[in-house]
């Protein structure tokens, strides 16, 4: 049986196989024609990527770059129902990797799939065998009842493993945000004059922001002002922006923009790069140029992830780099700032 499946995959055929989650539509992920066939079957728009199944971490490394986060996840969860997204090495058929060059990899915890993959010695697409947006396929009938004749014709081989237990679908996790920790190295940002103060509470941090605002508020209307905030999780970057907003006379409640990326309050635009994949590009895409041109005030959290883009505005804007570090006591913070 294994030999039959391997031969079919080698011949560029579309095969339905069981996995520990659902039935998957398997093709040789290095074969362009086979992948095209799969795209047609899934009825997907161009550019929507496919996850692939491999046998082990060694095989995965041929196709993706694994960072520490990815390695942790492989060690802990694979084989198993977790798909780990990493930066691809661009050596699979077109359309398997995402447009941005990332690739999702699974190691299915299912002996038959493993054996086929091992013998084939190539990654196999592990996308669920339903057409897009149809029922999750726990048995072959789930698929066949929901597809067109045209789609049926595309299937070359189906291996019936009966009704699969209703396991959770695979959890997808992206590790590429941790690819290149962009750390603001000492010396990279040269501050003309550096100041440092100790904050003993969140309220204290807000007051420091207020004082800092008063130093620069005379520029409002003449120049854009950027507060570029750097500091580990939980150091109080949002606290700082709360203080800034209060000093600017903004009455609205300031909350974290991590999820929405950008919140605007009159003159103040509050940005967070924490979950941006391409922080420099994404900061630009948010319309920063126009904001600078309009002489807005920007507070950017995790600014160390987007130094290159922020630096581009140094002609037009006053850039105040603010660094918050943990101090000795639980609530102590060392806040330093300076302009470039």
């Amino acid at each position, binding site marked *: 049986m294994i030999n039959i499946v391997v031969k079919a995959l080698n011949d560029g055929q579309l095969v339905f196989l069981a996995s520990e989650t659902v039935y998957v539509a398997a093709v040789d992920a290095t074969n362009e024609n086979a992948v095209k066939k799969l795209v047609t079957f899934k009825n997907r*728009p161009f550019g*929507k*990527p*496919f*996850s692939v199944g491999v046998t082990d971490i060694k095989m995965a490394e041929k196709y993706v770059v694994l960072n*520490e*986060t*990815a390695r*942790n*996840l492989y060690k*802990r*969860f694979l084989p198993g129902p*977790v*798909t*780990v*997204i990493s930066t691809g090495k661009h050596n699979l058929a077109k359309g398997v990797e995402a447009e*941005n060059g990332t690739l*999702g990899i699974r190691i299915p915890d299912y002996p038959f799939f493993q054996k086929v993959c091992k013998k084939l010695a190539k990654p196999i697409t592990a*996308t669920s065998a339903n057409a897009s*947006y149809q029922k*999750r396929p726990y048995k072959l009938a789930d698929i066949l009842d929901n597809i067109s004749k045209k789609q049926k014709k595309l299937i070359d081989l189906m291996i019936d493993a009966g009704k699969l237990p209703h396991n959770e*679908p*695979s*959890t*997808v*996790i*992206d*590790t590429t*945000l*941790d690819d290149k920790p962009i750390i603001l190295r000492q010396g990279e940002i040269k501050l003309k004059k550096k100041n440092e103060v100790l904050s003993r509470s*969140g309220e204290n941090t807000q007051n420091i922001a207020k004082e800092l605002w008063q130093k620069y508020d005379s520029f409002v209307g003449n120049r854009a002002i950027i507060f570029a905030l750097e500091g*580990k*999780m*939980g*150091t*109080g970057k*949002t*606290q700082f922006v709360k203080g800034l907003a209060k000093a600017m006379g903004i009455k*609205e*409640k300031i*909350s*974290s923009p*991590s*999820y*929405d*990326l*950008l*919140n*605007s309050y009159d003159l103040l635009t509050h940005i967070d790069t924490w*979950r*941006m*994949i*391409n922080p420099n*590009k*994404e900061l630009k*895409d*948010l*319309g920063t140029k126009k904001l600078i041109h309009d002489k807005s005030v920007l507070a950017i959290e995790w600014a160390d992830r987007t130094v290159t883009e922020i630096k581009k505005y140094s002609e037009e804007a006053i850039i105040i780099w603010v660094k918050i570090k*943990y101090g000795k006591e*639980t609530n102590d913070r060392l806040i330093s700032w300076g302009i470039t």
Partner: protein
Amino acid sequence: MIILAIDTSCDETAAAVTRNSEIVSSVIWSQSSLHASFGGVIPSLAQRQHQERIDWVVERAIKNCKLKIKNCDAIAVTTGPGLAIALGVGINKARELAIKYKKPLIPINHIEAHLLSPFVNSKFDSEAGRVILNSKFPMFGLVLSGGTTVLCLVKGIGDYEMLAETADDALGEALDKAARLLGLGYPGGAILEKFARSGNPNKYNLPFPLQNDKVKNRFSYSGLKTAFVRLFEGIKNPTKEDISDLAASFQSRAFDHILKVLEYHCSLKVTSLLFGGGVANNIELKKRLRKLCKKHGIKLHVPYTNKLNGDNAAMIGVTAYLKNKNVKNLNSKYGGIEIIESIDRNPKLKL
């Protein structure tokens, strides 16, 4: 009432066709999830991506249900809250279709839609005028996601009183941040939950957020986050067991906070709780909420499928229906080019 609904409030591009409170078709282009099954989010900005996808997604939602746009009674679209440039793409598309097909255009609040998502595919007996799910107003409403942490009193559809909202991070965001700190990738809330299952939630003594609040009318995760960073940094070479215990401890304390605030308001003698948003996928939290609800004689209502906890347009369509049960009034309220063109994005829209 047949509604074509569109949502582009954040990373997902979504369209759906709904008939009254039921889903006819629902399409979500989720960047983060190759299987479109888990409601995480990956930003890869924003306007351009939605712009490329919106036509395909709407077309697919229509095609999947064998209806035509001309058969719809109205178009509904999310106008906020969310990222302005993302919202704009959905609103432009909805406006274009509303004008082209001469349909009323109903603006919808994304948080309200999450709040009402347990009503999706629930039976509604309009003749008897009975409340859906056979529950009586007022109800509690709890929306917990990557961007929202809200507890409110639902006095009726469209009539809400805020009981507590977050002063800093949303719960889903805090869970994702804790996960990323532990080296578990992004969005890590779901993986954090998996680790937490085998961990000891009492191993580390993390602080209870806002323990001294006498009136519990807000949430906050900044203090817990800080304590967690400091705790983690003090552990040299954490083992898998350590990571599991850390995950369990953080998750447990983050949930304690939600439960304490909810329990504080239980004196209101409300008998139902509506619960939606991405964190409603968390099995442990649902278990703990159920226990609390049981103690106070409250019935917990969650969406019939986890797919509705992530961002989707089906809940937008159903919300539009629940707020406008009378088809005849649609046109006078939401019809005409002037009204349609006046509908605009509102990134900071409140419940």
